């Protein structure tokens, strides 16, 4: 017997509502405590699914095509468990922050419920509703510490995402007319027997335009750095947006591709888009000077890598990409959290002005370093495993060269990012290992998440078997070679950055690249038109 799945959606929202009635101190405790029953229930559901296979639950006794359907399967529950882990860590991290009030906690917990709902829903209309509501909640969270920059950024975020979701809704209407279904299972059944691919092109293009914007694919990513890196956004909001929420887009893409693949196979198209996204992402990341923006653009690059892996014609690559979703959530959250602590300590976010984090905040620097090693794919760390599987899927083709270039880009951008760890701090002070009293708990959370990066690498084989139910090979005998390649990449990246890119004029100009709202809408329209034209030519 499995727990009813809607509980996983409702518990955080109800906890958020309940804490409104309590004093703030109790409210914080309740928010944290609500993660425990959630974890227990999600764990129970996970174990049931592992033993007995995927479970479907229809709420309200309607038939599956009309009711609200939730499905528990390994991938969705992995992501739900990941969200619980992240939200618990973030709430702990944020415990002492002055801006936390009951409204913030309510919004934050509602957001968790919505995200869980997106992962568990089978019905595209429910997904639309959940995504739309979470968009509103996020724009309020981004603006929680309003300053003049974040209002503009929040406005751009809200409107572009609403426009994208209107595309989604219209596509859903077309799809309902063509197939008479809105839930993924029925759609898959109907579409796999569909002869006339022509009639699916328009709904597919509408849906994919929306999903590509949500997943921040090239050229639709320009809202992402604004939303994730805006100065006013609380650190934990940036962390959860970059770590988890962007993956909702990728997850939707994965689900929709699964449905449409028998008729419209667009893998090669999205493979190319993924590669382009990854390359553009790291180029823009290297160009930035603001530490939060470096991380935000870097998310774009990693999303590109995940999309590349998902669209490869190889199981290892696909599971590698799914594992990378989880890994990226952990190291990107760590990086955003440490960046928040660092910018708080130095009172600036300009990377040129931050020096000597090792001396000032040893624990935070340690966590940063662990996460950086994870994201650059250092041997033994989680990033190396997922990247190796994606690489394995590429095989000895030109694709693997492209992947090496992407990894080199990652290394270069993090050589730049890590430069703040060393050197002499501007105002040296002898700090204890865990930092000042107010920073102790946040630093502890960061180090914990950083250690998870290492753990996810060493235990990658049992982890993937547990999470996805597949056995992916890890060839430990190749490890010497891998270490060598990593060191070579590191050397190449460091010299490339210090002797070339640092003063490259065109890179400085790339920083000014900032699309206005109209440009974003125009690219959205162009993306849609391009997708329709390409599909028309292909089919």
């Amino acid at each position, binding site marked *: 017997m499995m727990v009813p799945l809607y509980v996983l959606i409702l518990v955080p929202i109800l906890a958020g509502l309940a804490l409104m009635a309590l004093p703030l101190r109790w409210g914080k405790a309740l928010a944290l405590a609500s993660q425990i029953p959630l974890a227990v229930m999600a764990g129970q559901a996970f174990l049931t699914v592992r033993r007995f296979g995927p479970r479907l639950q229809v709420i309200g006794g309607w038939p599956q095509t009309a009711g609200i359907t939730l499905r528990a399967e390994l991938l969705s529950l992995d992501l739900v468990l990941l969200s619980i882990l992240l939200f618990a860590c973030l709430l702990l991290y944020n415990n002492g922050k002055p801006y936390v009030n009951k409204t913030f906690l309510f919004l934050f917990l509602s957001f968790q419920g919505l995200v869980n709902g997106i992962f568990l829903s089978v019905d595209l209309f429910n997904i639309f509703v959940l995504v739309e509501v979470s968009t509103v909640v996020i724009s309020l969270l981004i603006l929680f510490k309003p300053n003049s920059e974040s*209002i503009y950024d929040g406005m751009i975020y809200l*409107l572009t995402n609403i426009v994208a979701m*209107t595309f989604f*809704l219209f596509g859903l209407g077309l799809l309902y007319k063509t197939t008479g279904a*809105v839930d993924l299972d029925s759609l898959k059944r109907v579409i796999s027997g569909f002869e006339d691919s022509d009639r699916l092109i328009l709904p597919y293009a509408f849906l994919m335009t929306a999903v590509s914007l949500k997943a921040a694919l090239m050229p639709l990513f320009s809202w992402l750095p604004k939303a994730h890196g805006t100065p006013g956004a609380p650190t934990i909001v940036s962390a959860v947006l970059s770590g988890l929420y962007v993956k909702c887009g990728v997850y939707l893409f994965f689900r929709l591709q699964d449905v449409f693949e028998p008729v419209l196979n667009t893998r090669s198209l999205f493979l190319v888009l993924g590669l382009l996204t990854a390359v553009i992402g790291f180029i823009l990341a290297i160009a930035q000077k603001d530490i939060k923006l470096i991380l935000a653009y870097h998310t774009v690059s990693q999303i590109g890598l995940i999309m590349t892996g998902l669209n490869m014609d190889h199981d290892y690559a696909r599971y590698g990409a799914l594992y990378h979703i989880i890994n990226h959530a952990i190291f990107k959250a760590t990086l955003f959290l440490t960046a928040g602590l660092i910018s708080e300590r130095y009172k600036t976010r300009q990377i040129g002005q931050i020096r000597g984090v090792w001396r000032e905040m040893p624990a935070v620097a340690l966590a940063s370093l662990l996460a950086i090693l994870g994201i650059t794919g250092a041997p033994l760390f989680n990033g190396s495993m997922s990247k190796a599987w994606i690489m394995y899927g590429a095989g000895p083709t030109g694709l693997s060269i492209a992947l090496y270039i992407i990894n080199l880009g990652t290394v270069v951008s993090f050589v730049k990012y890590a430069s703040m760890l060393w050197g002499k701090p501007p105002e040296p002070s002898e700090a204890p290992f865990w930092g000042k009293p107010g920073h102790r708990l946040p630093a502890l959370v960061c180090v914990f998440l950083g250690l998870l990066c290492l753990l996810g690498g060493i235990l990658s084989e049992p982890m993937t078997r547990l999470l996805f139910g597949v056995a992916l090979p890890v060839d430990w005998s190749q490890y010497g070679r891998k270490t060598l390649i990593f060191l070579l990449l590191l050397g190449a990246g460091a010299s490339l950055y210090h002797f070339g890119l640092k003063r490259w004029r065109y890179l400085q100009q790339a920083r000014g690249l900032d699309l206005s709202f*109209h440009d974003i*809408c125009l690219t959205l329209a162009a993306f849609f038109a391009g997708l329709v034209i390409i599909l028309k030519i292909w089919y």
Partner: protein
Amino acid sequence: MNINVLLDWISGEHISLVLFFVGLYGLVARRNMLKSILSIGIMQAAAILYFLSADLAENSVPPVGESVAGQAMADPLPQAMMITDIVIGIGVTAIALTLMIHLYHRYGTANWQKARDKRRE
């Protein structure tokens, strides 16, 4: 051109497609934030019209109450979905307008271009 052909062409589905792209044009071409929000409203209305008019059987009755023999009921599913969407649309528009007013107070303008220049300062 025969006027009847044109009249046949005018159906909820076609109009909604046209409306959708009218809204999209408004988003790309208008510089005022209020007009952007209105354009989004048009696009949402287009989506609602599409859902309600696609697959609608002639002379069908609303899916409310007891069914009358011999009369076809309209498909209730799109209608249920669109009620939900109308509610969401109201919420989203309200939030967008609130943000716009907030931004207007901060920057003194509701023009995208000018707001962007102000943000850079």
